[in-house]
């Protein structure tokens, strides 16, 4: 790829860098316990939890496995399970 003038680049290109590989534990949502409050989406520093029509998606391409979503979940609906390498 050619370098750009003054290193000025298009924004929004970080999606090409998959931080999911950093993870050593993964959050798993237990849907029976989930009250769809949106807290997990709010607290994710990596924008890796989405709420779409009350369906929760964890984006494992980017989730670093920090565990904030599980810790902050008011109904303990998210479990952190060790990542199998």
């Amino acid at each position, binding site marked *: *790829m050619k370098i750009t003038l003054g*290193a000025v*680049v*298009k*924004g*929004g*290109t*970080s*999606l*090409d*860098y*998959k*931080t999911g590989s*950093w993870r050593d534990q993964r959050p798993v949502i237990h849907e029976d316990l989930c009250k769809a409050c949106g807290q997990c989406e*709010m*607290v*994710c*520093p*990596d*924008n*890796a939890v*989405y709420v*779409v029509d009350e*369906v929760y*998606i964890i*984006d494992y*391409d*980017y989730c*670093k*496995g*920090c*565990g*904030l979503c*599980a*810790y*902050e979940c008011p109904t303990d609906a998210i479990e*952190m399970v060790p990542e199998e390498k």
Partner: protein
Amino acid sequence: MSLQQIARKEALFFSGHRACHGCGMALAVRHILKATGKNVIVVTPTGCLETFASPYGYSPWQVPWIHHLFENAPSIASGVAAALKAQGRDSVRVLVIAGDGSTFDIGFGALSGMLERGDDVLYICTDNGAYMNTGGQRSGASPTYSSTTTDPAGKESLGKTQMMKDLPAIVAAHSAPYVATASVAFLKDLQKKVKKAMLYHGPRYIQIDTPCPSGWGFPPERTLEIGRTGIDCGLVPIFEMENGKITSTHKIKKKIPVTDYLKAQTRFGHLFSDNRGQAELDEIQAMADRNIERYALLRESGNK
């Protein structure tokens, strides 16, 4: 595109940035941009945010963003604001998102100049209490008796002996119309304050407490928890100042001792390792109590 792909692209601060696990600063930035919307130009000085959010060719920013140097974000922002004014681009606003090293220390003169000139810039300091990008060195925002790599606790030292610079008060003394503190522990309040600040013109300042798991020494899932205990013990007062007067404070629901906050972080571990930290712990408790009184942080008056 899948729902997931669509959702990825709704944000103004994308996934794929390289912040540490549980980074309070990255979380703050997501919510700051949710509150401002896309009509902002963001200036960020050198620091954690610049490093984890700008590797060449991997930019998470969906707003125009510029990093120039460590100590000049306020003056870069002043220049952006001046250009927008000259061009009549009134709908575009200017935002600085900086760390505490650049804000409290190296960029302090430039910040004062920007404030004094009354430039139309919202300056947000994401405060993690040290130069975390370079490994946690002492800054003017490092809390008293925290151990940092340039003011470490040791046989003859209990860490930083000075008080943290009271930057919100210093900013307010420049006649800034809006000054607030916020925390990632209360993200809705953070967003509300950013939105409110956007309603004002002139220089505005928000200082956000952004706990740092790797720098403060706590597990990454506790970022918000640490933020909450900092608030609940009185060491991190959350308030708003409009036109020089305090107009709101976040009330502490149940006051906790400072030791609950300090014990949970390795940067204060030396205060608990033997008995020699007791006087310092008392001193920190007195600081928290002074904050509680000064900002009236308890729900009922006289409840001390």
